[in-house]
Structures are given as C-alpha cells and as structure tokens.
C-alpha cells in the first residue's frame, strides 16, 4: 500500500496540491489507523491529511477518482489457442504466450511492469507520450514478437499461419492498450503540469504578441491576479510596530496601569486608495495591452476607489459609462470592436488627445487623482503638446505613464516618450502580466 500511496501523492503533486513530507507521513499513519476497509473512509482520511483548502479538495476528489478506479475491459485477445499447441519455431516472448492464451490480466500486469521499468511516472509533457509508448513496447519485447510472427508466416503450415494471424491481432490490441495506458497515466501525472507551463509562459509573454486562443486563459489569470491583489490590499493594516507614536491611544491603553505608560500604540500606516483616470491609446498596435490593463483596473475595486476611462486615437472619448453598464469582459470586447463608439480611428495624435482632454474633461482630475496614460507615445510627428500634459500633471496627484515598448525604443523615430517622461511621476514599461502586477504595487504606494 505504501507504494500505491506514494504514487498517489506524486500524482497529487503533479495536479498542483503541494504535499509536504510530513503530510505524507500523516497520511500513512491515518491509513494505518482507519484501515483500508471502506473506500469512503480511506478517501476521507487522505483528504483530511493531504488536501488543505477548498480548492485543493476539489483537485483531490478528481485525482482520487481517477487514480483509484478499476476498469474491467472485455478481452481483446482471442479465446485461447485454437487448435492444440503446434510445434513453434524460434522462441516466443512471454507476452506472445499471454496473447495466445487470452490472458488479459497477465498482459495488463506485464504492461504495468514494463511501464514501471521505463519510469512512466516521470512523464510531464504531452509530447512525451509517443516516446513512452515506444519504450514500453520495447520493454515488452515487441520486436521479438514481430520476428516470431514473421517466422510463423514463413513456415506456412495452416496451424502456424492461424497462430500468426491471432498473434498479429493481439499485437494491435496490445499497442492500443499500451497507448491508452500511457494516456491515462499522463492524465494522472502530468496534465496539470503542462497547464502550469502554459501559465508561466503567459505571465511573461508580451501582451501585443498574445495569440487569441490564449485570451480565455489570460482572462482567468487576470481574475486570479485581481483576486490576490484585492485580498492583499483590502486587509486593514495591522497595528504597526514602529513609526509615529499615537499618544492618545497610548494613554487610553494604559489607563488600567494607573497612568503608567507600559504599552505603546503607534499610528497606523496609511494605504493609498486612489481615484484613477486612465487615458488609453486604442490604435491597433495597442489594443491587446489596453484590453488586459482595463480588465485588471476595473477588477481592482478594493485597491482603487473609482476609475474613469478615456480612449483616444485621433480624438478622445470618455468610455466609463460602458464599464458601468456592462460586465467588464463584455465592455473590453466592445472597446475592441469599437461598436457604438464615436471615435475617429485615424492616425494617432497625442497632441489633439491632450487638447480634447484638457478642454473637456480636465475637471475629472483633482488633487486626489492618479492619472494613468497607457500608450506608446508615437504621435506620427504631430505636435506633442507637452505643455498640455504638464497642465494635467500639475493638477493631478500623480501621473503614471505606461509604455508597452521596451525602454530602448523610447524616443526613437516618432516616439515622443523622452519628452513626456520628464513630466511624469512614474514611467513604467507595461507589456506583460508581470508588469501589470507591478503597476498595482505602484498604485497603492503613497509617493
């Protein structure tokens, strides 16, 4: 049972439940106490010792059902030798004998042994399935079986060719069985780890290069990120251990000591919960970055007090109302298609966008507002209008510029980034999910 338990724990780890050594010892002890008699009790015992959160319980349930399931298959092999045992040339590998006798249990066992000998548990990637299938077949001496069948055919007697046909059918069934077995084991040991590799890749992929088939996964990742950030920053800050002395609280806390000051109370650290105004460049090169950035910002309702969003290309337009009326995912989709938006999608013109903003919406910016501009600052050699940006910067609490290009590209060609940079409080590259995460940290920090 220890071996089985070990394998089960390996499969759990593969599926994303971090099982520590002490927990696996607990599991073994728990099984020793509660016994193996009742499947439900075994499952409960393992669940109590191995899976330690609601999410892990779910994974555990799936793994348990997959791992401890027994399938009974109808025998795909012929029902035993057809006409007595004839004299057979060459030496038949043991697997051939099992096929001739229709010993399904024996074959299954042999496959399992072979799988263990080639260390099938180590399978991690979907691309390894073929290799492992081949190795297992080799361990089962399939090549020898093939030679044996060829010899039988060459001999030519009716009995021999009947046996050869039977073996050949059995061989197909065997390959099929091994393939299925590898598939099953891949499901148990590796499926989730492949998922994790994709996830890791998505964290660092440039959003502009993201393929559309990964959008769903990306939305999921952003939701996860948003949840984590909301959790992290929604907790009221616990009482600080140092900082400025809160004299009033200290006095009150020490009343029962007769006014002698034993315990100190410190002033709490304040967290920033900013109002955000975001200006997004929605020219084609920017659309994916804008999509994911807005998706995140609108999710962060614990971190950010209020968001007002504007999009611009040749002209500027407020789009906050779309986010107020539709679900976030739908709203970003509408921005992408431009459906019902009265915006002029010509050449990007930062100058006129700033002009529109300062003339029509400047009252959106107050001393409490953090203004975020998301754009590549490529203004097609138009008037950069940096004096207007300066006006916005002075009115706001903070001006953050997010540029999806890598820093070496800033200021090259028609990029006005170098000019705008001087006016911003913070300039960040923003092209991957990781950058978005850093943005949240920057937002809550009080400058």
């Amino acid at each position, binding site marked *: 049972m220890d071996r089985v338990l070990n394998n089960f724990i390996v499969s759990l780890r593969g599926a994303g439940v*971090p099982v*520590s050594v*002490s*927990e696996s010892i*607990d599991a073994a*002890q*728990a099984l020793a*106490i*509660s016994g193996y008699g*009742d499947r*439900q*009790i075994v499952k*409960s*015992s393992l*669940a*109590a*010792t191995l*899976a*330690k*959160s*609601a999410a892990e*319980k779910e994974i555990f349930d799936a793994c348990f059902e997959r791992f401890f399931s027994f399938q009974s298959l109808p025998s795909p092999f012929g029902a035993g030798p057809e006409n007595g045992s004839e004299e057979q040339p060459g030496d038949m590998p043991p697997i051939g004998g099992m096929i001739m006798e229709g010993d399904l249990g024996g074959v299954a066992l042999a496959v399992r042994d072979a799988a263990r000998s080639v260390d099938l548990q180590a399978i991690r990637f979907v691309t390894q399935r073929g290799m492992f299938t081949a190795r297992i077949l080799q361990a089962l001496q399939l090549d020898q079986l093939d030679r044996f069948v060829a010899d039988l055919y060459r001999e030519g007697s009716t009995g021999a060719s009947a046996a050869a046909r039977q073996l050949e059918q059995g061989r197909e069934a065997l390959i099929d069985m091994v393939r299925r077995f590898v598939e099953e084991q891949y499901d148990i040991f590796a499926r989730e780890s492949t998922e994790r590799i994709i996830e890791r890749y998505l964290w660092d992929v440039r959003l502009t290069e993201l393929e559309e088939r990964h959008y769903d996964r990306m939305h999921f990742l952003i939701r996860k990120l948003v949840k984590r950030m909301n*959790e992290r920053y929604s*907790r*009221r800050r*616990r*009482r600080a251990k140092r900082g400025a002395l809160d004299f009033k609280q200290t006095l009150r806390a020490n009343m*029962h*000591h*007769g006014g002698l000051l034993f315990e100190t109370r410190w002033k709490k650290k304040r967290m920033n919960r900013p109002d955000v105004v975001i200006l997004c460049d929605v020219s084609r090169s920017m659309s994916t970055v804008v999509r994911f950035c807005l998706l995140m910002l609108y999710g962060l309702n614990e971190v950010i007090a209020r968001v007002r969003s504007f999009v611009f290309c040749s002209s500027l337009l407020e789009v906050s109302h779309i986010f107020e009326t539709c679900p976030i995912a739908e709203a970003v989709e509408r921005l992408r298609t431009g459906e019902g938006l009265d915006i002029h999608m010509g050449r990007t013109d930062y100058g006129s966008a700033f002009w529109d903003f300062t003339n029509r919406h400047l009252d959106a910016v107050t001393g409490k507002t953090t203004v975020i501009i998301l754009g590549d600052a490529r203004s097609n050699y138009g008037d950069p209008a940096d004096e207007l940006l300066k006006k916005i910067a002075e009115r706001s609490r903070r001006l953050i510029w997010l540029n999806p290009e890598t820093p070496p590209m800033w200021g090259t060609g028609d990029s006005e980034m170098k000019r705008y940079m001087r006016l911003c409080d913070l300039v960040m590259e923003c092209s991957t999910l990781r950058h978005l995460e850093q943005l949240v940290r920057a937002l809550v920090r009080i400058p």
Partner: protein
Amino acid sequence: MRDQTGKFETVDQVNEGFKSTGYICSTDIATTVYLAFHLEKPVLVEGPAGVGKTELAKKAALFMDVPLIRLQCYEGLDESKALYEWKYGKQLLYSQLLRDKLDQVIDKESDLGESIRTLHRYEDIFFSPQFLEPRPLLKALQEERGAVLLIDEVDKADEEFEAFLLEILSDFQVSIPEIGTVRARTRPYVFLTSNSTRELSEALKRRCLHLFIPFPAPDLERQIVRHHVPDIPDLLERQLVMFIHEVRKLELKKVPSISETIDWARALILLHAEGLDRDLTRKTLNTFLKFEEDIRAVDEKLFLLVDKALKETA
C-alpha cells in the same frame, strides 16, 4: 488524550456518538474527528458560514464529556488576551496595601544597595501564579482531564498570532518568563475554524488535519432536520429541503444556512403546514433569508422554485 472511555474505536462509533449528542455528521467529518483523536492533531475546519463548524467543536466537548474552552479571534488579538496576563490591578493594589510592610522591611537598612538586595529576595511575590490571569490557551493546557479548545475564526487574527499558535499547537507547552514552562497535563483536543477571509499560512495548515464542511447533501440535511424537528411531516420535510437546496443555487447575498432551514421547518410546523405551497412560502421567506434583496430575488422566481421542489419530491 488516551481513549479511556472507548468512544473512539471505530469511525462508525464516532458517528453514532455524535448523533446521540444531536450532531449528524458525514463520513468526512466522522473520519477526520476520529483521526484527529488518534493522531493527536488539531483540526482546521473550513466551510461556508452556518454549516455547523463551531457546533462541531461544542458537540465534540459534549461527546467526550470534557469542558469546552473557546477563543474567539479578532484583529489585534495578542498573547495577553489569548494566553495569560498579569493581574496588574491586583499587583498595584497589593503593593499599596503592603506599603507599610515594605517600609518596615526596608527601613531598618539605611544603605540603598542593601535595601535593593533585600527587595530582590521578595521580587517574585508579585509575579507568582496568584497574580496570573490565565486566558483560554493557558486554561486549556491546565485542564486536568483535557479539554476541547475551540479557536474560532482564526483567519480574523493577525499573521503574528498564527505564528504564535504554531508553537503551542506543536508542543502543547508555553513558557512564561517569570514562572517557567507550563506543559499540558492532558493534551487538549483542538478545533480551529476559518471562514477563509484570507489564506492561512502553509505551516499552520501542515500541522492540522483539514476538514472542509460544505452544505450538506439533501439526504444528510433531511436527517438533520428530522433530528431537530422530529414531528415534521415526511412530505413537508422532503419538499422543504429540496426548496432550500434550490435557493442555495441562486446568487444571493447570504444563502440560507442549516440552522435557518431548521428555523423555517419549525415555523412551518407552527403554521400547521402539511406540505409546501407558494403562499405559505412567500409569507415565511424572511425566516431563512436575511436581506431585502435576497427576499426579492427569491420572490421573483418563487413559482419556479416551489414547482421544482414539488415535482422532484412527488
């Protein structure tokens, strides 16, 4: 804690034992409690509000016939509230009362150094067990026959407190600088509950058995209702549980808990209901829904929900 009473021989026995105290448990719950007893490990209980996490600890105390000691966690909870505190007031009062006595002790000596030395001989007087105020954790360690220690809503406490708990939960001993190490006379049986308002630390989870209590399956919930409201007509009980299960599938601010199911069953009995119908349900919605919006949301779909409950139990 050794199994002197023979109450923990099999999982079924635990199950039956809890039933006799009025707590109907699933196999998961019974197995975990059984294991926790034998492995001497704390149990971390998680699950939505109102599934009986706290009740489990109370009934465990009843079942084992030991006192229940409860520590309610909240933000800012610290050692002095959880473990022990000196009775400052008493110390001050005594030192005032004993002032004359002190004068006598010291007065004879004129030398300052001499009087300090004399005082040193008495210093431990004010830091002796008589001046110690045990808080829940220390109390649980001191119980002669063991106890059930319930650390409620541990996710509300700060992370530092969690780290501090680790020490107690692994060794069941604490050191009080002025007195020395206090070791558990009998290991208490520990339940921690959490509503998952935040992730608990890995280290804490590793040391505990983990029990997740979801809302019970219909069959189990029917057993629970029948246990608490024995004179409920069979039909009504089935329909009512089915209805509650349908309501839980809706997106509500607060889904009805088990205790609210029971409340509703009692209310319906008082109204002499034999089976569920739309009118009666509408009038009694407020026994298990506690938000105006929720009542409105359920009211809108009442026809469908009641219909479904009636059909599935027909």
